[in-house]
């Protein structure tokens, strides 16, 4: 058996079991929480509420309404593989993703599972239900050798995944419709009783309160729209400021001329060496590591390296020794050797009008700047 296959098997088993542990613990906790909430709140058919929620989510998956799902917009750390080794990282990834609430939630199905567990108020059922969710989530990893294209690279993985979005949306839609139907059956009442219960609730509330809630609902829609408009304005304003501080970005075809020596070699790199393939230049300074950006830098370097299929150059504005010390912070893998261009007098940074670091410039195959970006937490101006 090839060694990588053993490592793969151990990692996938560890990933699945670690996730199963965290998922069942979270499921059981949600069940207990549901039981506690059931004692606090009026126990007026919680499954009916869950059934209505499933209908709302079905309508969302149909695309008739749109709203963001509560979700933590964070990806599980890929750098754990470098820090802890692949096997340990797989276990940590499993545990983290198994928690359910710690990463992205794309479709409504996850929240339906949570809602059902809360409504049932049963920790055992909660553990089994969220455990099933996790096993479904870990299944693609088990199938990955057969699911992935033979020539796959990391970037095509997400292309393949996004190509299935419509299918996954439909699967969620069917799952939500199925869950909604089952949940309505779990209410244990006939349709007429449900309608009577809803009307009874409305009568208990009184029409004044109902209209009050409706008015608030109507106010919320323009408020959300206004919020979105303000966000767009802020984004546009930031883009305008960025373009002002980098006027050469307006003019395609203009790349500042430079000549930089490569750290650890006698080679000198000029723009003509970058012709022929999309390239990324990441400007850093030795001070970046001192400002606690080292971990972010390593993650950024990793991402940029993949984005350009390895055509990434780090431009270090500082003296040779300090740049050499910064190097381990940027090398995310022992097998990958990213070229570091020395910009000892900062002339190259000035030519690119770099105001703060780290900042990345993307060049096309003809060495024209086609994009740039900096970290929000980049350190003060040079």
């Amino acid at each position, binding site marked *: 058996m090839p060694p990588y296959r053993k490592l793969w098997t151990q990692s996938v088993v560890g990933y699945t079991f670690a996730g199963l542990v965290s998922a069942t613990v979270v499921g059981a906790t949600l069940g207990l929480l549901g039981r506690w909430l059931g004692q606090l709140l009026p126990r007026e058919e919680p499954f009916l509420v869950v059934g209505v929620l499933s209908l709302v989510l079905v309508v969302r998956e149909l695309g008739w309404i749109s709203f963001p799902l509560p979700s933590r917009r964070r990806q599980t750390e890929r750098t754990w593989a470098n820090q802890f080794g692949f096997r340990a990282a797989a276990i940590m990834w499993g545990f983290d993703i198994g928690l359910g609430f710690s990463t992205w939630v794309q*479709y409504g*199905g996850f929240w339906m599972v949570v809602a059902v567990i809360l409504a049932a108020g049963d920790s055992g059922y909660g553990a089994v239900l969220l455990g099933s969710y996790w096993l479904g989530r870990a299944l693609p990893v088990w199938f990955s050798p057969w699911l992935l294209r033979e020539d796959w690279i990391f970037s095509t993985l997400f292309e393949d995944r996004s190509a299935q979005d419509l299918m996954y949306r439909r699967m*969620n839609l069917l799952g939500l419709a199925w869950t909604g139907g089952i949940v309505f059956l779990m209410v244990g009442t006939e349709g007429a009783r449900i309608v009577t219960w809803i009307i009874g609730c409305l009568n208990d509330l009184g029409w004044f309160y109902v209209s009050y809630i409706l008015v608030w609902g109507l106010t919320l829609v323009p408020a959300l729209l206004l919020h979105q408009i303000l966000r767009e304005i802020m984004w546009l304003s930031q883009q305008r400021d960025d373009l002002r501080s980098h006027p050469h970005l307006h003019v395609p075809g203009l790349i500042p001329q430079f000549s930089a020596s490569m750290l650890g070699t006698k080679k000198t790199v000029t723009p003509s060496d970058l012709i022929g393939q999309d390239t990324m230049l990441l400007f850093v300074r030795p001070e970046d590591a001192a400002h606690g950006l080292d971990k972010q830098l390593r993650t950024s370097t990793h991402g940029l390296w993949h984005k350009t299929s390895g055509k990434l150059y780090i431009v270090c504005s500082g003296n040779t020794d300090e740049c050499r010390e910064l190097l381990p912070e940027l090398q995310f893998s022992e097998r990958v050797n990213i070229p570091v261009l020395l910009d000892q007098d900062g002339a190259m940074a000035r030519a690119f009008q770099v105001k703060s670091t780290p900042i990345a410039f993307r060049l096309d195959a003809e060495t024209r700047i086609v994009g740039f970006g900096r970290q929000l937490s980049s350190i003060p101006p040079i």
Partner: protein
Amino acid sequence: MRQDSSSTPILRVSYALLLIALAAGIFAFRYQIRFALLPAAAVFGWTQTGGL
């Protein structure tokens, strides 16, 4: 060369999983109604990004 997205292995396995889940859901429904939600939960899990 890019594969036709309508016949990728992920898609074929997804269809197979959906059919298995439906059969399991119907079977579980006859056994105990709340267990009919377990295959649906697995389908929800399958579609989340983190798995791949």
